């Protein structure tokens, strides 16, 4: 048996990363291979249908896969995640000179978001706003930047376009993940001191390595052990870990997805059976 994993090709570096990891896993006695998907929806379906044994899933793909699995009466496991997948926050950002001091001030204003399927730059921050009485289409106008639809926000383009729209004065606020607020400020997309953070979500978790019903338990155990043993002081692994954006793999946990579950339900993005229901979502 070969443990077959799916990954979404949101960037050419995905090939370098998983080619390298594959070699490392095979060298350590795990028959392992991977297939690439152009978006997360088919990957989630194939995982639950047993076409692949594991999936490197976005948080939204995890939410959907759990629903699909539940509808079929099978269970999934979040095996591992990156150290950088834990305790992220999404932000609501305005221009410092906008006069907008709090979330309540956004009533009847326009906010820019990332792609429709971006947990961090659309679903989670809009859920935060809803909890403050700001409902898109009612007392809040949303200007969405749909870049890389189907990639669940892995493509940074939508968030960057939202940040640019904010600086250009085209919108009153923008949604982005904490790390990108820092990145956009460092690269100059957001001028230093020119923005104000008026809201932040509670910490949530991001990707995980999801194990599906077809996986062999012995291979899964080996897969987990080899991933968790990857060390940043290994010179051949370090470039791959840098590309994938982690220093070490951590055991998976599912406690950080409840806010996204709620956001998905609020918008009806997926049905309870995992069906895609979101209006205008065409991966």
């Amino acid at each position, binding site marked *: 048996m070969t443990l077959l994993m799916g990954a979404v090709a949101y960037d050419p570096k995905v090939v370098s990363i998983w080619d390298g990891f594959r070699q490392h896993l095979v060298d350590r006695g795990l028959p392992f291979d991977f297939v690439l998907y152009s978006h997360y929806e088919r990957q989630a379906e194939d995982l639950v249908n047993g076409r692949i044994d594991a999936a490197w899933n976005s948080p939204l793909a995890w939410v959907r896969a759990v629903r699909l699995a539940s509808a079929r009466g099978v269970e999934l496991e979040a095996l591992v995640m990156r150290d950088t997948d834990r305790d992220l926050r999404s932000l609501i950002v305005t221009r410092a000179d906008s006069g907008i001091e709090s979330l309540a001030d956004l009533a009847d204003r326009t906010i820019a978001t990332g792609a429709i399927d971006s947990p961090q730059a659309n679903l989670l921050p809009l859920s935060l706003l809803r909890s403050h009485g700001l409902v898109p289409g009612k007392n809040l106008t949303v200007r969405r930047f749909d870049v890389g639809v189907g990639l669940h926000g892995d493509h940074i383009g939508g968030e960057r376009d939202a940040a640019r729209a904010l600086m250009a004065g085209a919108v009153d606020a923008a949604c982005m993940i904490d790390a990108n*607020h820092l990145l956009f400020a460092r690269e100059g997309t957001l001028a230093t001191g020119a923005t104000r953070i008026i809201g932040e979500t509670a910490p949530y978790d991001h990707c995980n390595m999801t194990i599906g019903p077809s996986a062999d338990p012995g291979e899964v155990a080996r897969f987990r052990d080899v991933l968790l043993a990857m060390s940043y002081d290994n010179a051949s692994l370090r470039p791959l870990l840098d590309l994938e954006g982690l*220093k070490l793999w951590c055991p998976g946990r599912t406690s950080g997805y409840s806010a996204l579950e709620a956001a998905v339900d609020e918008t009806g993005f997926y049905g309870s059976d995992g069906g895609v229901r979101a209006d205008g979502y065409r991966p």
Partner: protein
Amino acid sequence: MAVSAPMVIDLENLGLEAGGYLLVQRALHDLPVGGRLIVRGSDPALRIHLAAWSRSTGHVADVVGGEPAVIKGSAVTARWNRAERAGGAGSGGVLPHADVRWGLAMRGALVEEGGPPLHVDLVDRDLVWADAARQLYINGSARQWDPAKEVHWDDPFSLPAEIEAAVVQVMTYLVENEYAALLIPAKFIARLHPHYREVMQVLSIQVADEARHVEVFSRRATLRSDEVGVSGAGGRASLQTLLDEPDFSLASFLLSVLGEGSFLDLLSFIARHAPDPVTREVASLALRDERRHVAFGMAHLRYAVDADRSLLGRMRMAAERRHDALASTAGLNQDVYDSLVTLASHAWNPASIATGWQAVQDLQRDMDQGRQRRLILLGFPGDEAAELSALHTRNFM
């Protein structure tokens, strides 16, 4: 001081995105893994940016509750756990063997493990080094000359057609020899580990010198004539044997010591007997550079022979091998030989030709004596030096 006391840093109003992370990084440097750094500051985004920055750099942020803090992770130090120094920065830090895994790192740098190995094979000090390399590079660098300024191209002169033709033929011959003298160091630069950077620098200056020689000899060849001279097959065969020598020390021996060594006398001859000021100047300027090339070849071979006496035997074999390879070729093109005589004759009458003929006889004797002198300096006994000098190519280079 209590070892458990957390360290505190105050960024004042500096944001992490505007360089504040440098101060945090510096403060973390002095902490052990697991150590806690409290970060104070008035930037409103400090807490959020600290969390994001810590996550991406392998640290753990504690931003809930009291003052934000960073707990130092192990990743930063892990990157350098297996790093090693590539020798020392100065010439005292030159190591006997250079590791290809150091890649293009500067000598003395702390080299992170990983990265592609350098595809070079000249990685042993004894095979390439000369203690004089640094000084020869400094001298060479300081004595680069500008052909546009140093040569008086517009000085008026007029030569009889046959004398001008002889000069053109000699220049044609010099250019093809300079090509060989350019390509050989260029080839070795690409095979040399930059750990031995002084050698790389000397060879690079040599390449630049030869490029200039090609320029001035070409320009003199076409100064009065649209047509240049002939190129004999035997001469080119002789130069090809130099290009084909893969061993750095043996190539230095054949090219710099025997070939360029002979050229010192040839260029000196041309400068002395030149029938016009431009020819005299270009030969004199090239001679100045070639002395340095010969000096490096000698310095390297004396170093290499000191390290391994058996190199003398291999040098002898290389000279013999080259002689055998060229036994069936004509060597120096007769046209070149005749042109040297004509060039030194200055006029087309028996007395002048006799003078030119004698001058070329003297040149060949001088070349032979120069080669013998250098061979003896390298450690060959006198009789062997005479024998080896006699085997040297009739093409001079």
